[in-house]
């Protein structure tokens, strides 16, 4: 199947007097229609620049971006405005107009496109119902909670039936409860409307809860990309590991410092069925070693289960080596903690 979004050799440099800063280096990836695609990275990694390029707010230095049938990096003026009307965007700080009510904010993109008033009314009422804000239609944004503001932002972004929705840290300014609600809404929209969603975030929760695929970006490069369950169950790049550890409140590093000759620490990664098998019991039975469980974490993604277990192995060197071989044979990925 033809990918809906196709990005090829995208790069972006910023020039400051004589210095060149490359914010994006050779970015390539595809997003399928109906997919929720997450771009994750720390601040300054380049994810904002990437989303700004995808949404046409920033011109890339080189490379191509296809969205639907348009190659958007070459669009200007009228064709560019037409493209922008086919996509929706929501923002971290909502960017609503303070001079307009909820109703008028949602009507704004329709007015800009000269939609007849009776159709505007019909569509806005529909959208208000969709995001659950019919009772607030005459309120001004300053009277709304963050979650409500983002709902208005979503309704506004959907007004012109976009093919893709860009989310720029859409939940970063919200509390956990509102974040959950907004993510739930986005998921529903994806399922009911088949809406393709491309989002950037530094919150791993967001990726875990709604994304099908994730790209981890670091220093302007995509360092890891794939289905969320693959990337999070077998993280390779330090940035991804860092995110995982932050999100599960991993043990402080000092604990691992008391290394002896007869033990070492392991972090085991589980995924899907292997997360449910009694690996630890088998280790203890088969190899005469003791396994001291220090920390465990398991998480349900939309399509699978992933988890990690941090353990201390205690036993003879030979037995420990055998144990590691057994783990490998059982398909459990592990990492020795230094």
């Amino acid at each position: 199947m033809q990918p809906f979004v196709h990005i090829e050799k995208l790069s972006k440099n910023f020039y400051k007097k004589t210095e060149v800063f490359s914010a994006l280096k050779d970015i390539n990836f595809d997003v399928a229609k109906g997919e929720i695609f997450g771009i994750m990275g720390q601040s300054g990694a380049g994810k904002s620049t990437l989303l700004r390029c995808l949404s046409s707010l920033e011109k890339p230095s080189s490379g191509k971006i296809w969205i639907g049938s348009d190659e958007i990096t070459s669009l200007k003026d009228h064709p560019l405005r037409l493209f922008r009307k086919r996509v929706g965007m929501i923002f971290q700080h909502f960017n609503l107009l303070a001079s307009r009510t909820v109703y008028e904010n949602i009507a704004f993109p329709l007015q800009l496109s000269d939609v007849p008033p009776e159709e505007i009314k019909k569509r806005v009422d529909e959208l208000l119902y969709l995001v659950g804000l019919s009772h607030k239609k005459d309120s001004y944004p300053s009277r709304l909670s963050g979650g409500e503001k983002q709902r208005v932002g979503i309704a506004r972004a959907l007004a012109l039936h976009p093919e893709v929705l860009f989310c720029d840290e859409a939940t970063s300014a919200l509390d956990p409860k509102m974040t959950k609600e907004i993510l739930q809404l986005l998921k529903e929209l994806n399922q009911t409307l088949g809406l393709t969603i491309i989002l950037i975030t530094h919150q791993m929760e967001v990726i875990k809860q709604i994304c099908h695929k994730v790209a981890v970006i670091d220093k302007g490069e995509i360092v890891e990309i794939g289905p969320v369950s693959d990337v999070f169950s077998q993280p390779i790049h330090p940035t991804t590991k860092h995110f995982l550890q932050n999100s599960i409140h991993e043990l402080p590093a000092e604990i691992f410092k008391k290394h002896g000759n007869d033990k070492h620490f392991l972090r085991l990664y589980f995924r899907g069925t292997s997360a449910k098998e009694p690996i630890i019991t088998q280790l203890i039975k088969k190899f005469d070693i003791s396994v001291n469980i220090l920390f465990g974490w398991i998480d349900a993604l939309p399509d699978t289960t992933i988890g990690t277990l941090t353990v201390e192995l205690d036993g003879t060197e030979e037995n420990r080596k055998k144990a590691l071989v057994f783990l490998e044979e059982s398909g459990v990925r592990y990492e020795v903690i230094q």
Partner: protein
Amino acid sequence: MTPENISLALDLLPPALFDTLYMVVASSFFALLIGLPLGIILHVTAKGQIKENTAVYKSLGMIVNIGRSFPFAILMIALIPVTRLIVGTSLGTTAAIVPLSIAAAPFFARIVEQSLRDVDRAVIEASQMMGATDSQIIVEVLLKEPLPSLVSGFSSMVINLVGYSAMAGLVGGGGLGKVAIQYGYNQFNVFLMISTVVLLILVVECIQWISTKVVLHMQKKRGLISHE
């Protein structure tokens, strides 16, 4: 305070007040007409804005600065030929409107520029993402979002014009300023002098009161301050 003084005041002050209001209203109108587009152009051509154009911004900025740095009395005299060309005479109430408008326009242009600059760049980008054209952004976003601050800036300009219009009395303009100079200053009529000043204060108070009401109403409507 003698009876003669009072009857003189009753004869002179009402038409003078009317002349002052006429000058202020007319020149505010023309200053708005010139200053608003000037302010918009200044804003959109500034660095990082939607129609960034350094050459236009710098040259227009220079003209505005020159206009603002002229002392009003000098500007009035310098503009006599222009006033003659437009009004046919450089004397009288109507003639004063020309220099008053030209003095106030650059001031208002800067006020407009400042108000528009307060509109969050991200809100403009959000509008661009909805496919808004530049003119739609100017009308729907840049002018409507900071409306309260535009209104209070406009009233500052009107109040300035009340002061300027009194000064216009020095050089053949009409209104309360003329009464203050002719009767109050030249003929040492303290009563008339004080009366004109009090009237001018009342005019300024009125303008301020209306402006505050309008701005508060807009802010309340937007939920920016709570309803009592």
